[in-house]
């Protein structure tokens, strides 16, 4: 029985309602299936120590912290720059299915896993840091730039005199049309690159994450807080020091400070390809049967449970992210509050999206005990801060009217309906990313795919790591295809870069942390 007339059922709003309902139901189902046991007894002592640490940051406790800061910047600048160039080249071949598939595969692997792979090949060197960022980012840039080119107006190119060379067409009739969104999107990605660069410290590269993880893991909270504050400051002040004209200078400095060279001897690449990733039964001449057994065992003991837990965790986190984003975006929207409240809102969002998820998960683990709950909350807090920050900026799209509704009424009847499509699009882009991030929650004892990949690397079984990474790539491709179809159905922009490029002020300043 339909409770709405046919016309009302098949409107754009109707489609949005149904899509939201289904996503919400999936999220609720995931919450029901997820393991959310709360068990904790006496977190007071440790939380008090953490609190004291944050009140008494010790900037002198960490040696070479400025060098770590410089490395963080250097890896990020080089990695993102290389990613932009490589992504652009790939985007030129976007009409080939092979290029699209290749890009999808390289961006489906988490930066940390690229880092762990390159540690084997290029050692503990700047090159490892640069490639770990550049490769997945090239995949992301290829997709976004490729779709820019696809969507760009074709008329200027057809208006050129016949016989114009491909090169002339590209530079005079194609490139100028997409240059602006390319620039905006690259600048947005630089902040992501800085976060990624810091996180690479967790696996041993000499960036801020190296000292941050050590300090928190060892309970040295004053030292950890100092590094975290430094990182907040770096991200929060981006808008004041990241100017387009200074970029060549920064890039030059990055190359001077950390030349992207390998520190491993020759032959490591060959060793990796010809020995490390060859499945153990084949390496030991076990034959095809042994190989099949190895695959089956890995699939049933690790890949399948890993897939299931990753799906449940990320679907629940997506629902919580959506709810938190709806609550958080008014904090930074000029439609609500005062300049003071917005300033505080911006600071809150910088803190939430800059604090690595593992840190949030650790504190929540003390509070709630080990289950999926700390993981879900940590991922949702982090992601919703990013979505809310971008969502708040979308509210600048239309002029404010002095007779417009304010407060709750304005939120429900004016602002939310207008920005809802953008929020939903951003959430769907983020789903894939949440799924990748579940990798780092091993501390909670949740056996996601990333948990098993991590174990395989610790055991120096790169064959197993590769198998499991391939499974997570397939999962990511599946989720990507699903969210693409959904966006198509909802007539949302298919292109994250396009959505972001529509941000007000995007043409002059990239979206950044403490925007007024």
């Amino acid at each position: 029985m339909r409770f709405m007339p046919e016309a009302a059922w098949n409107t754009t709003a109707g489609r949005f309602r149904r899509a939201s309902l289904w996503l919400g139901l999936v999220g609720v189902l995931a919450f029901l299936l997820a393991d959310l046991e709360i068990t904790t007894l006496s977190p007071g002592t440790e939380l008090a120590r953490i609190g004291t640490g944050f009140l008494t940051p010790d900037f002198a406790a960490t040696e070479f912290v400025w060098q770590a800061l410089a490395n963080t910047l250097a890896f990020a600048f080089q990695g993102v720059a290389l990613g932009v160039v490589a992504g652009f080249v790939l985007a030129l071949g976007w009409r080939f299915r092979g290029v699209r598939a290749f890009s999808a595969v390289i961006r489906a692997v988490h930066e940390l896993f690229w880092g762990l792979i390159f540690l084997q090949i290029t050692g503990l060197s700047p090159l490892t840091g640069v490639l770990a960022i550049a490769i997945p980012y090239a995949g992301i840039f290829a997709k976004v730039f490729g779709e820019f080119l696809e969507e760009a107006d074709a008329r200027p190119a057809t208006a050129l005199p016949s016989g114009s060379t491909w090169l002339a067409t590209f530079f005079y009739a194609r490139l100028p049309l997409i240059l602006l969104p390319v620039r905006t999107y690259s600048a947005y990605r630089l902040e992501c690159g800085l976060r990624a660069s810091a996180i690479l410290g967790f696996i041993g590269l000499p960036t801020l994450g190296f000292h941050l993880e050590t300090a928190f893991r060892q309970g040295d909270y004053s030292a950890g807080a100092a590094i975290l504050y430094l990182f907040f400051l770096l991200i929060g002040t981006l808008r004041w020091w990241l100017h387009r004209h200074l970029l060549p200078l920064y890039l030059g400095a990055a190359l001077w400070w950390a030349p992207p060279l390998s520190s491993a001897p020759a032959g490591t690449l060959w060793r990796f390809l010809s020995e490390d990733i060859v499945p153990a039964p084949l390496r030991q001449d076990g034959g095809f049967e042994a190989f099949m057994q190895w695959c089956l065992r890995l699939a049933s003991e690790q890949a399948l449970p890993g897939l299931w837990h990753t799906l449940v965790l990320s679907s629940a986190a997506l629902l919580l992210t959506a709810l938190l984003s709806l609550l958080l975006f008014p904090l930074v929207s000029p439609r609500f509050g005062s300049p003071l409240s917005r300033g505080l809102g911006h600071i809150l969002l910088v803190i939430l999206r800059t604090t690595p998820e593992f840190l949030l998960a650790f504190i929540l683990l003390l509070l709630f005990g080990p289950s999926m709950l700390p993981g879900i909350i940590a991922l949702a807090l982090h992601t919703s801060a990013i979505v809310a920050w971008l969502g708040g900026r979308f509210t600048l799209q239309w002029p404010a009217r002095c007779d417009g509704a304010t407060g709750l009424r304005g939120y429900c009847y004016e602002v939310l309906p207008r920005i809802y499509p953008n929020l939903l699009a951003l959430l769907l882009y983020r789903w894939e990313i949440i799924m990748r991030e579940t990798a780092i929650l091993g501390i909670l004892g949740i056996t996601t795919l990333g948990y098993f990949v991590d174990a395989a690397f610790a055991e120096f079984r790169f064959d197993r790591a590769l198998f499991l990474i391939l499974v997570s790539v397939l999962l990511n491709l599946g989720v990507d295809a699903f969210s693409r179809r959904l966006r198509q159905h909802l007539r949302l922009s298919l292109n994250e870069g396009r959505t972001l490029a529509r941000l007000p002020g995007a043409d002059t300043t990239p979206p950044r942390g403490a925007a007024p």
Partner: protein
Amino acid sequence: MIHKIRARLAAALLLCVTGAAHADTFVFTAIPDQDESRLMTRFGQVADYLAAELGVEVRYIPVKSYAAAVTAFRNNEVQLAWFGGFTGVQAQRLVPGSRAIAQGVEDPQFISHLIVHTSTGIEPSDDFPLALRGKRFTFGSRSSTSGRLMPEHFMREATGETPQRFFSRVGFSGDHSATIALVQSGAWDAGVVNYKVWEQARAAGRIDDSKVRKVWSTPPYPDYHWVIRGDVDARFGNDFTDRVQAALLAITDEALLAAFPRQGFIPASNEDYQLIVDTARSLDLLD
């Protein structure tokens, strides 16, 4: 001067290429089992000592994890490393010809403690407390000998089951200090820690007896040791391995030993770690 400082820092932070340009620099790494702060400062002294004893340039590079240390050793980015029992074995297998040359005085008789939150009501005993069945339990780091490998081995012997079956939930806290903090907070009911870290935390007043207690200790097993690559003699001189071993065994300076921290070093050989190899195989951690 500025250049010199910068060069040193760059080197310190692994930002130059090893290999041809620094063929004459002997590089080592070490992760102490407790207190990983200020590694460069503390192990820089050890590097200076070794340089004076060996007559070659010696450099220390800090690494994050045992796995990173093994990787650096395998890639010849470091030629000498202070490994835990299991990681030392991993390194010996990945780099044919490498040798265990020294261990801490304490290391042949290393033990781990099982600690529980007091709400479990479990009292100290000589046998593994089977009352822990169905509780939540955390190991330390995945490749830690004292925080995972040997405790898991002895626990499997005592319970006849894998920890994943015996406990309702099994996690990896990543570190001994984190294990203590998480068990003390009640987030996990029980965990295993390196006995030296436990004693240090107790001495530092970080243990609240009303919340966490030690209830069982593992039998002794061999743990930390120095492993050197087999190709150093060809690179630094015929008797280089022996000279490194002699230099390590001769360390008596309290300040240097405090970095590890050990009372002193005694000789070791690859055969001392057969128990670790067998255990790692039985736990399916080595192929």
